[in-house]
């Protein structure tokens, strides 16, 4: 019961509690990079690598199985572009390097900049899709009325679990005209 007699030290306690408040506020913000890292490692939110992966070791092609990849393209609401892939679905052996061409057309009368963001479903497959070259690593400036053919070169990591037979790679094209004009970096390619 000695605690009853010790002189209460309010200010020390308040300092500690306020420090916890500040810490938790910072923690809320720290969750943002933590979440991103977590998703990058696990592929939980379907993110794929946004900088070039090392090329495939040609010897490791697993010819015993095929993985089906479905391609899906969309433009964000209100962006008057056309955006499509040359193929809708493709079967590849894990380890085999393949190139798929995507086409984007700016149907407006002004120069614009777009940015395609990839997403893989199921997320479990995301870490196994390795892109060695992709238009999605940069912005895509398109002059008024222009069409661009944009290659995407990839291979599927031979370590991909056997139960993943099919996955979808979806690209959403966003309007980045304003952000690019302001010089804001959109996709971090520094890694």
């Amino acid at each position, binding site marked *: 019961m000695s605690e009853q007699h010790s002189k*209460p030290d309010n200010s020390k306690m308040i300092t500690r509690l306020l420090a916890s408040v500040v810490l938790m*506020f910072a923690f809320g913000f720290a969750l*943002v990079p933590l979440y991103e890292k977590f998703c990058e490692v696990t592929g939980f939110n379907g993110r794929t690598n946004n900088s070039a992966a090392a090329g495939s070791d040609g010897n490791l092609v697993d010819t015993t199985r095929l993985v089906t990849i479905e391609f899906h393209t969309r433009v964000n609401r209100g962006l008057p572009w056309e955006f499509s892939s040359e193929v809708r679905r493709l079967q590849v052996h894990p380890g085999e390097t393949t190139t798929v061409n995507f086409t984007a057309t700016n149907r407006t009368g002004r120069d614009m900049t777009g940015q395609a963001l990839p997403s893989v479903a199921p997320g479990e497959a995301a870490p196994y899709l390795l892109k060695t070259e992709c238009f999605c690593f940069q912005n895509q400036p398109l002059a008024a009325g222009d069409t661009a053919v944009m290659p995407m070169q990839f291979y599927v990591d031979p370590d991909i679990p056997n139960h993943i037979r099919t996955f979808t790679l979806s690209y959403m094209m966003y309007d980045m005209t304003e*952000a690019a004009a302001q010089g804001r970096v*959109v996709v971090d390619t520094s890694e």
Partner: protein
Amino acid sequence: MSTVVDTHHEHDDHHDHKPTGIKRWLFTTNHKDIGSLYLLFSFLMFFAGGTMALVIRAELFQPGMQIVDPHFFNQMTTMHGLIMVFGAVMPAFTGLANWMIPMMIGAPDMALPRMNNWSFWILPFAFIIMLSSMLMPGGGPAFGWTFYAPLSTTYSTDSTALFVFAIHIMGISSIMGAINVIVTIMNMRAPGMTYMRMPLFVWTWFITAFLLIAVMPVLAGVVTMVLTDKYFATSFFDAAGGGDPVLFQHLFWFFGHPEVYIMILPSFGIVSAIIPAFARKPLFGYASMVYATAAIAGLSFLVWAHHMFTTGMPVFASLFFMYMTMLIAVPTGVKIFNWVSTMWRGSMTFEPPMLFALAFVILFTIGGFSGIMLAITPVDFQYHDTYFVVAHFHYVLVSGAVFSIMAAAYYWLPKWSGFMPDEGLAKLHFWCSVISVNILFFPMHFVGLAGMPRRIPDYALQFADINAIVSVGAFLFGFSQLIFLAVVVKCMAKKGQAAVAKPWEGAEGLEWDVPSPAPYHTFDTPPKIEAPIR
């Protein structure tokens, strides 16, 4: 059982002198005054939020659009939720904490009386800002109390800035309140009031205060991110800029789930005070109650994603959050078991506080059961965002948290006002409330299971009959609360039967050792507690 020495210290009049009129209330640092302010403010907000609920239910009385336009309907659901959570339930608990914690632990006041004044007085401003944002062009917040991005970023009106500001103020107020509670409990207990002798209301509030300190800053962070995403070109939640809208939900529910426990733990404390008093038996399993409360608080940080099963989480994560959620039912079950055991072979009487406490135990348990149903990942895909969820959280929040607040009001009104709540009116209030609350919320389970989505102003014809019943229940429940208002006004007007120091025969605790109404200053000299008070 309670052995209190030295409670007969001076209650002389010279101690009671205080400024009069508005100044008394503006500048007061007295825990009882501030407690009353919180409680009255919460009561006002309860009626404001309730009126909005009646607008919602009036629109939903029939299928089709009759009374309000969809955008206004959305503002009503949003404001109703925000007001009830941040304006009614949380301030009511803070008011009870202010009134009761110092008296229950034998302290003369809260530890930080001036901060206490601030934490109350910034609250009305927060709500004035939030409510007046509805007058802005484009209307007030209409994105639901959960303000999911991008609804609150890309698609919201400029009132969002005011919303963010108001939430910041409310958060600061709650954090200051929580700091005050913690410091008071740790530093101001009377000699002999060891931690394991504290009444459960004090214990549950102690734990709640830590939850508040842990999660209110996270809420402040999320609203700040919404603000910068909307106005300062950041992309926390904007996929186009490399952000992720799902991240919003993770951050929000990291706050949100502990928040729902912030709104129920003090209820557990209230009910744990009332049931023993009217069963005339000590609380069964005091220590297990304390540990169960702590366990619930700890687990509440590990279940947030049960609000997000349909966002496409990986199976492993879904399973983790499903099992963690179900685990919470264990300590919750311990509590319910203890309350029932306390009543077992007790000599029970059914005064108004006990009636509300009993209704709490039964109806809260129903809400817990629907919670467990929602926690089952695969079935949540069917229930999510339907009226089943609405039924669930209204059982735990209205017939749970709100009923416990009413029980507390009836239990302690004699101490606060010096007058017994009118028993006839109180019982009428109870029966009207308990019947109408079930007419209001029980049928929501059925329309929810049948697929009626929440937060939509119109619905398919097959839901018409049940919605009509629900709306009738809503108006009955709403108007029943006027009886409660009458009881409270009558006590405040000092009408009715005067209360003795301990008006409830089986009640235990230091608060009953001081006269009714409690003098302005109590326990200036601390009492000495020599045995557990239970």
